[in-house]
């Protein structure tokens, strides 16, 4: 059978989790370290299942697999890379939980120091261990190491910017977008670029697939931020004082007493559900939802264009397009045509 005829779905999320478990078992230097990483990994399946239920895919699994298949026609050789990307995602998620003071139940009995160690091991050490064992030439490995290091730096810059804006009275919409680009866009771009590099794509094509991942990550994060603000029962972002794009866009258009009033409302919304509803009402009435959806759609369109230019092999190309469609789930044109 030719590679192009292989089905990308041949690698499942369960396969990736199993590879990650096996890597932990092999890599850890003692039982205590293994136990710590097993606790970390124990939360991953639940997160994957939630993503599958909502979107039908898991970004850190599907991006490396599908991009590899889009270049080479098969995804099976990218299984260790999907495990690597999943480990990064897990580590970043643990760091996020630590930053938010929102550690899941599985960490009961573990100190912040131990949890930080688990985050560092999964975000950085295990990926490096997995990368070093990929069956590729030293030249390609070096390229992938560089992609990973550059990606880490950009993701960290996004996180740093996000933390700096927490509770800010004067966040700029462009700063928030840059933070989303770093935190989500560069994470997704890194996974996609690594998939393309593993498959042996030329640098220009690697950059195009990175753009696909970047657009998917930004659009997805903005969509998620909107959901958090306008639909979720209780907004954790508002509770944490996070300045998401709808808030920053509206704030920068205000001045004088109106600005002070809205800042006070945001402050109240950190603990008051009624104030949260009021924030959502005000932002909706002022067009902040429309603006944010527009920016998300803009990035999604950019990713779709990059995907076309990358000339992906099928069926991976269609799968990547479907992933991009799912993020906005019909706010855009294709769904409108289907609805007639």
């Amino acid at each position: 059978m030719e590679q192009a005829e292989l089905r990308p779905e041949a690698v499942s999320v369960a396969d990736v989790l199993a590879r990650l478990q096996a890597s932990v078992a092999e890599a850890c230097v003692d039982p205590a370290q293994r136990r710590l990483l097993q606790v970390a990994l124990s939360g991953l399946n639940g997160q994957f299942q939630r993503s599958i239920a909502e979107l039908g895919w898991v970004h850190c699994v599907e991006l490396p697999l599908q991009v590899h298949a889009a270049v080479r026609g098969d995804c099976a050789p990218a299984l260790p890379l999907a495990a690597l990307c999943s480990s990064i995602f897990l580590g970043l998620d643990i760091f996020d939980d630590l930053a938010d003071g929102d550690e899941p139940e599985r960490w009961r009995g573990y100190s912040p120091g131990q949890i930080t160690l688990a985050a560092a091991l999964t975000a950085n050490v295990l990926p490096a261990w997995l990368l070093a064992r990929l069956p590729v030439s030293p030249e390609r490995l070096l390229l992938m190491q560089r992609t990973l290091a550059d990606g880490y730096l950009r993701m960290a810059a996004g996180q740093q910017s996000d933390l700096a804006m927490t509770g800010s009275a004067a966040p700029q919409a462009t700063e928030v977008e840059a933070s989303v680009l770093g935190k989500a866009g560069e994470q997704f771009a890194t996974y996609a670029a690594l998939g393309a590099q593993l498959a042996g794509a030329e640098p220009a094509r690697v950059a195009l697939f990175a753009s696909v991942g970047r657009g998917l990550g930004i659009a997805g994060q903005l969509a998620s931020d909107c959901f958090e603000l306008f639909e979720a029962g209780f907004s954790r972002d508002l509770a944490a004082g996070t300045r998401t794009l709808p808030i920053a866009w509206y704030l920068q258009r205000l001045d004088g007493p109106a600005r002070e009033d809205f800042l006070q409302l945001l402050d109240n919304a950190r603990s008051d559900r009624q104030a949260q509803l009021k924030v959502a009402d005000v932002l909706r009435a002022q067009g902040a939802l429309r603006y944010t959806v527009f920016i998300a759609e803009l990035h999604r369109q950019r990713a779709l264009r990059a995907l076309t230019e990358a000339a992906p092999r099928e069926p991976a190309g269609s799968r990547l397009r479907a992933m991009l469609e799912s993020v906005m789930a019909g706010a855009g044109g294709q769904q409108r045509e289907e609805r007639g």
Partner: protein
Amino acid sequence: MSYEAIGQLIDRWMNDASFRAALRVDAEAAVRQVGIELDPDAQAALKSIDWSLSDADLMSRVSAAGGA
């Protein structure tokens, strides 16, 4: 990216009923007619968004998970 132009577009959408109606019929023509200049990426987004959706409908189509 033409953030200012996108802001103008949204302001107009929120405050001008005739513009909203025009946008639902032919978004590109409506934007051109009021002199808002969008770059190609923003033009693509403009054409892609279903302007006939209410805020509630629009929100119901935005993914909760966002992939992350």
